[in-house]
C-alpha cells in the first residue's frame, strides 16, 4: 500500500497556492472560510471515471457496493470525462490505450485527479518487458496517487481514496496544475512514445492561457513541434457577420485610410 | 325603288306591296352568303386553270363579301326576324330562309371563321408550298362548299333543305379532312363517312316519319301542327332519329366516334372549323327542331342525357389523351355535351345558356385548334414550348382558364348560368347533370393545366429546336379571338343582355310562325 507521502512528484516541488490565483489579491474577509468550504465540498464529492483496462477492475465493484460503499465518502462512478473528478486507471496501459487515456484526462475539468491502481501503472509490472506497454504513468500525466499491489484489495483502494480526500481537503492535491505548467515535459514524453505527429483535439496551451495556469515550462521544444505540424483548433466562436453591415464597415475603413 | 327588277329576276322576290321595299331587298340579300360561296366553289377549278392567283383570292373575297352582306342586312333590318322565300314560292311549298338574330349570328360566324381559318392563309412553311399549290383549288372549293352549306344550315327554314345542306357540309368536310392525303387521314375519313352515312339514313327515316305524320317539312308549318300530330311516342321517335342523325356532326355522345381520329389527323384549321363551327350549326338545327317542333320534356331529357354522357366521356377521355389535337378533340366533345345540356334547360335560360356556351366554345376551341397547328404530336414534345412562343402559350392559358370557367372570364358566367338553370329545373336528372358538369370541370382543369405547365417547363435541349412556334397568322387569329373573349368578359352585362334578347326571339315559336306566314294561310283552316 502506498502512503500519501510516497506519491511520486514529477518535477520541482509544488508551491501551495490552492484557490488563490497568483497575483490576485483576496480582500474578502470570508475568502478563507469560503475556500475551506469549497475544498471540503471538493473532497466530499468525487465523481470517478474508471478506465478499467486490466485485472485491477475486479476489485472496484466490492469497493463500490454494499460491503465498502464508496458513496459514504461521497464518491460515485460517472461515465464521461466531463463529469469526472478522478481518473482511475486500473492496470497496464498499452501504448494504444494510453492515447485514449491522455485524451480522456485532457477532457476532464480541473481540479482533476489521477489514481493509478496496480503495479502495472507504477512501473509496468509484469509487462515490464513488453514493447507495447507504457511503463510509468506519471511520465505522461500527473498522477496523484498510486495504489500499488497486484492487485490491491478493496480496503487498499478505499484507503487510497481516503488519502486523496485528505490531500484535497488540505489543498495538497494539485498535481493537475503541473500538467499545464509543464505541458512541454509531458508532451515530450508522449511524442517520444507516439511519434512527432501526436496531437489531441484538446488545446491544453490555450486552456492554460485562459485559466491563468500558464507556467514557465508550458511551452518548449515539444510544443513548438506540435504547433509546427498542427493547425491549432480555433474555438468555433459565435459570430454575427451580416454581409451588408460588414461591407459598409469595410467601405468606411477604406474611406478612412484614403483620407 | 329602281333596283327591284334585277333583284326580282335574280332571286324571285316575293313581292308584297305592304312591305317596305328596301327592307325586303336587303332581307333578300341574305341568300347571297349561301349562294355566292356555292357558285365560287364550282368556279374554283376553272378559274384556277386561268389564274392561280385569282383562284386563291376568290375564297377570301367571297367570304368577306358574305360577311359584309350579313352584317349589312342585320344592321339594316334590325332586330326583328324575317323570312325569305326563295324563287318566289310561298312558304309551305317553297324553300324558306328564316333569319332571326341567332341564325344571322351563326351565319356571320360561318363567314368570319371560315375566313379566319381559311386553309390557304398564312400557312408559313415553305416546303409545303409546292404540294399545297396543287391541292389548293380543290381544297379551297371544298372550304367554300362547307361555308355555303353551313350558312345554309343556319338559315334554312325547312327540314328537307336542312338535310340537303347537312349532307353538303358532310361531303365538304370529308374532302377537307383528307385533303392532306395521309393514310391515317384517309382511314379517319372513312370512319367518319360510315358514321355520317348511317346517321344520315336515320335522320332521313326521322324526316320521313315527320312527313308521314304531318305532310310537311316546313319548320313553321311543323311548329303549327306539332302540338296535334307529334305528341307522343311517334313524334319522340322521330326526334330521336333526327337527334342521332344530326348528332353525328354535333358530336353528341354515341355518334361522335369519328371525332378524335379526324381531329387528330386533319389539318388543324379544318379541325378548328369542324369543331368550332360545323358542330355548332348541327346543334343549332337540333335546337330549332326542339323548340319549334318537339316541345316535350322527354325530348329535352333525351338531349340532356346525351349531353351528360358526352361531357363525361369527352372530358375523361381527354384526361388520358396523349397528344394535343386529340386532347382538344375530346375536350370539344365534352364542351358540346355541355351545349346539349344547356339547350335542354327549359325556356329562355336554356337557349341563352346554350347559345352562350356554343359561342364561347366556337371562339375558344377554334383558337386552340389554330394554336395546335404546329403543336400537334405528343404532349411530351410540348415541353418548354413557352420559351419559343410565349404569346401563344399565354393565349393557351387564357383560353384554358375560360374553358374551365374561372371567374371573371366569360366561361364562368356561362357555367353559372347553366348550373343555375339546372338547379331551377331541380329534377334528379338535372342535379345529376350538375354533378357531371362539376366533375368534368375538375378533370378538365387538370388536363388543361398539365399541358400548360408542360409548356412552361424548362425546354429539353434537343427537342426545343424542333418545336416551331405556331404560325404568325394562327397566333394572330388567337390574339383576335382572345381579345374577343376578354372584351366579352369585360362587357359581360351587355353581352348577356343581347344574348337574352336573342334567346327570347329564338324561343318564341309564334314569332317564327308569324314571320314565315305573314297572313294566316287559307289551308290551315
Amino acid at each position: 500500500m502506498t502512503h500519501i507521502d510516497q506519491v511520486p512528484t514529477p518535477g520541482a516541488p509544488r508551491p501551495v497556492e490552492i484557490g488563490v490565483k497568483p497575483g490576485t489579491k483576496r480582500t474578502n474577509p470570508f475568502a478563507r472560510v469560503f475556500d475551506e468550504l469549497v475544498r471540503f465540498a471538493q473532497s466530499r464529492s468525487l465523481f470517478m471515471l474508471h478506465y478499467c483496462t486490466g485485472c485491477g477492475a475486479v476489485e472496484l465493484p466490492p469497493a463500490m457496493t454494499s460491503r465498502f460503499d464508496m458513496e459514504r465518502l461521497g464518491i460515485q462512478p460517472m461515465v464521461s470525462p466531463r463529469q469526472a473528478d478522478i481518473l482511475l486507471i486500473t492496470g497496464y496501459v498499452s501504448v494504444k490505450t494510453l492515447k485514449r487515456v491522455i485524451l480522456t484526462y485532457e477532457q476532464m475539468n480541473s481540479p482533476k485527479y489521477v489514481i493509478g491502481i496496480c503495479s502495472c501503472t507504477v512501473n509496468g509490472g509484469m509487462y515490464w518487458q513488453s514493447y507495447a506497454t507504457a511503463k510509468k504513468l506519471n511520465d505522461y500525466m500527473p498522477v496523484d496517487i498510486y495504489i500499488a499491489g497486484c492487485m490491491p484489495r478493496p480496503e487498499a483502494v478505499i484507503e487510497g481514496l481516503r488519502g486523496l480526500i485528505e490531500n484535497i481537503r488540505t489543498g495538497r492535491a494539485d498535481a493537475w496544475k503541473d500538467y499545464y505548467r509543464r505541458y512541454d515535459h509531458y508532451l515530450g514524453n508522449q511524442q517520444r512514445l507516439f511519434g512527432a505527429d501526436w496531437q489531441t483535439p484538446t488545446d491544453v496551451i490555450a486552456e492554460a492561457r485562459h485559466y491563468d495556469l500558464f507556467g514557465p515550462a508550458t511551452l518548449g521544444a515539444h510544443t513548438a513541434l506540435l504547433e509546427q505540424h498542427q493547425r491549432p483548433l480555433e474555438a468555433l466562436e459565435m459570430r454575427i457577420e451580416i454581409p451588408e453591415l460588414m461591407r459598409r464597415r469595410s467601405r468606411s475603413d477604406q474611406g478612412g485610410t484614403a483620407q | 325603288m329602281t333596283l327591284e327588277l334585277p333583284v326580282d329576276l335574280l332571286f324571285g322576290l316575293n313581292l308584297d306591296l305592304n312591305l317596305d321595299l328596301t327592307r325586303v331587298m336587303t332581307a333578300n340579300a341574305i341568300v347571297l352568303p349561301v349562294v355566292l360561296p356555292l357558285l365560287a366553289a364550282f368556279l374554283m377549278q376553272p378559274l384556277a386553270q386561268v389564274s392561280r392567283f385569282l383562284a386563291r383570292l376568290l375564297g377570301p373575297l367571297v367570304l368577306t363579301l358574305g360577311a359584309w352582306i350579313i352584317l349589312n342586312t342585320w344592321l339594316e333590318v334590325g332586330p326583328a326576324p324575317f323570312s325569305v322565300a326563295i324563287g318566289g314560292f310561298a312558304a309551305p311549298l317553297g324553300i324558306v330562309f328564316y333569319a332571326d338574330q341567332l341564325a344571322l349570328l351563326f351565319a356571320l360566324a360561318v363567314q368570319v371563321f371560315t375566313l379566319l381559318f381559311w386553309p390557304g392563309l398564312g400557312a408559313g412553311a415553305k416546303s409545303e408550298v409546292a404540294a399545297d399549290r396543287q391541292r389548293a383549288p380543290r381544297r379551297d372549293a371544298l372550304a367554300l362548299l362547307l361555308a355555303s352549306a353551313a350558312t345554309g344550315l343556319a338559315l334554312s327554314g325547312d327540314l328537307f333543305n336542312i338535310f340537303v345542306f347537312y349532307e353538303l357540309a358532310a361531303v365538304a368536310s370529308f374532302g377537307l379532312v383528307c385533303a392532306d392525303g395521309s393514310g391515317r387521314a384517309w382511314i379517319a375519313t372513312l370512319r367518319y363517312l360510315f358514321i355520317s352515312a348511317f346517321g344520315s339514313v336515320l335522320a332521313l327515316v326521322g324526316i320521313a316519319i315527320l312527313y308521314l305524320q304531318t305532310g310537311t317539312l316546313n319548320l313553321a308549318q311543323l311548329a303549327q301542327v306539332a302540338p296535334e300530330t307529334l305528341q307522343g311516342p311517334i313524334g319522340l321517335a322521330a326526334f330521336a332519329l333526327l337527334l342521332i342523325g344530326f348528332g353525328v356532326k354535333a358530336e353528341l355522345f354515341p355518334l361522335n366516334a369519328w371525332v378524335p381520329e379526324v381531329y387528330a389527323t386533319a389539318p388543324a384549321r379544318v379541325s378548328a372549323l369542324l369543331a368550332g363551327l360545323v358542330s355548332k350549326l348541327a346543334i343549332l338545327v337540333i335546337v330549332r327542331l326542339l323548340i319549334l317542333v318537339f316541345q316535350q320534356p322527354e325530348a329535352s331529357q333525351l338531349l340532356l342525357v346525351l349531353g351528360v354522357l358526352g361531357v363525361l366521356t369527352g372530358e375523361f377521355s381527354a384526361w388520358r389523351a396523349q397528344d394535343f389535337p386529340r386532347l382538344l378533340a375530346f375536350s370539344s366533345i365534352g364542351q358540346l355535351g355541355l351545349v346539349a345540356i344547356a339547350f335542354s334547360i327549359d325556356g329562355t335560360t336554356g337557349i341563352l345558356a346554350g347559345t352562350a356556351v356554343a359561342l364561347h366554345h366556337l371562339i375558344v376551341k377554334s383558337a386552340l385548334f389554330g394554336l395546335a397547328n404546329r403543336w400537334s404530336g405528343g404532349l411530351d414534345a410540348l415541353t418548354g414550348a413557352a420559351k419559343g412562343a410565349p404569346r401563344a402559350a399565354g393565349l393557351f392559358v387564357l383560353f384554358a382558364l375560360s374553358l374551365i370557367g374561372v371567374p371573371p372570364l366569360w366561361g364562368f358566367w356561362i357555367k353559372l348560368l347553366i348550373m343555375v338553370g339546372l338547379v331551377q329545373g331541380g329534377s334528379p336528372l338535372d342535379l345529376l347533370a350538375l354533378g357531371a358538369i362539376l366533375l368534368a370541370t375538375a378533370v378538365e382543369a387538370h388536363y388543361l393545366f398539365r399541358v400548360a405547365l408542360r409548356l412552361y417547363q424548362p425546354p429539353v435541349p434537343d427537342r426545343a429546336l424542333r418545336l416551331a412556334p405556331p404560325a404568325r397568322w394562327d397566333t394572330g387569329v388567337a390574339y383576335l379571338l382572345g381579345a374577343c373573349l376578354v372584351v366579352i368578359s369585360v362587357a359581360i352585362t351587355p353581352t348577356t343582355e343581347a344574348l337574352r334578347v336573342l334567346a327570347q326571339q329564338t324561343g318564341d315559336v309564334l314569332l317564327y310562325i308569324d314571320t314565315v306566314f305573314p297572313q294566316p294561310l287559307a289551308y290551315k283552316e
Partner: protein
Amino acid sequence: MDWLSAVSLDGLAAVDFRWLGLVLELILMPLIAFVVGLGLVLMLRKIAARLQRRVGPPLLQPLWDIIKLHAKETQTSHGLIHEIGIVMAIGGYVAAVTLLPVPGMNGLAAQGGLIALLYMTMIPSLGLALGVGQCANPNGSIGISRALTAMLAYDVPMVIVIFGVAFHFGSLNLVYLIAAQQAGGIATWGIVQMPLLALAGLFALQGMLGKQPFEIYVAPAEIATGPMVEMGGKFLGGLFVMQCFQLYTAGVLYVALFLGGGENWLTFLFKVFVVTAIPMTIAMVFPRYRTEDMVRLFWKWPTMIGLLGIAFVMN
C-alpha cells in the same frame, strides 16, 4: 405637473401593499423548492442505498455535489447556447414553482392554471435540449431524442389526469383545486374521489421523473448519460439544481392534484416526501425499458386507467 400629483400622499395611501407580500412569496417559493428538492434528492439516494444494503451518502451530499461542480476551476463550454440552455433549465423551474401553491403561499397560481404550469415545465426541458444540442455530441442528441419520446409517452396519461381533475373540480386554478379538496377532509381528496386517475397519475409521475424502468434517455453504459454527456462543472451543477426543482415540482403537483395540497408545512412536506419516495422505491427493483416499450406501456395501461377514470368523473 400631472405625474407629481399621482405620487402625492393621496396616491400613496391607495397603494396596495399586498404586492410586497407577493414579491416575498416569489422570492421564497423557489428557495423553499430548492431546499426541499435537496432533501428529496438525498432521500432518493438514501432509499437506493438502503435497498442495496449500503449506507448511502451523508446528509449534505447533494449540496456538496453542487458546490463542488460550481467550484470547478476549468469549465468546458460548447458555446453560448450550451450555457443559456442551463440558464433556461434552472430559470424555467424557478418560474414554474411560483405557480405551485404551498401552505400559506399561492404565488402566481391564479395567473396561470394547470395547463400553464404543465407547459411552463417544458421550458426547462427545451432549454436543456438546446444546450445539449449545442454540445455537438450525438450521445447527447440521442438522449434528448429519447427524452422527448419519453415525454410523449408519459404526457398522454398526464394530460388525461389533468383533464379529469380539472373537469371534476370544474377549474384549472390550483388554488381552487386545493381549497375544494381541503373543504371536506380526506373524503374530498382527489385520490379518494378519483382513485383511478390517481393511479394513472402515479404512473405518469414515474415517467416524468425519469426513474427506472423509464430512464432509457440517460442509459449511462450505452449513451454515456445521454443529455449529460458533455456537461461538466457548473453545467452539471445546474442540472443538479434543476433536478431538485423537478422532484419538488412533480411531488407538489401530485400532492396538489390528489392529496389535498398542504394544510400546513408539516403535512405538506410529509405528503411530498411520501409521494416522491414511491417512484424511487419502485425504480430500484426494475431494469430499464427500451424506448418503444416505454411508449407502448404508457399509451396502454396508464392511459386506459386514466380514460376509465375520466369516464367515472364525467358520469
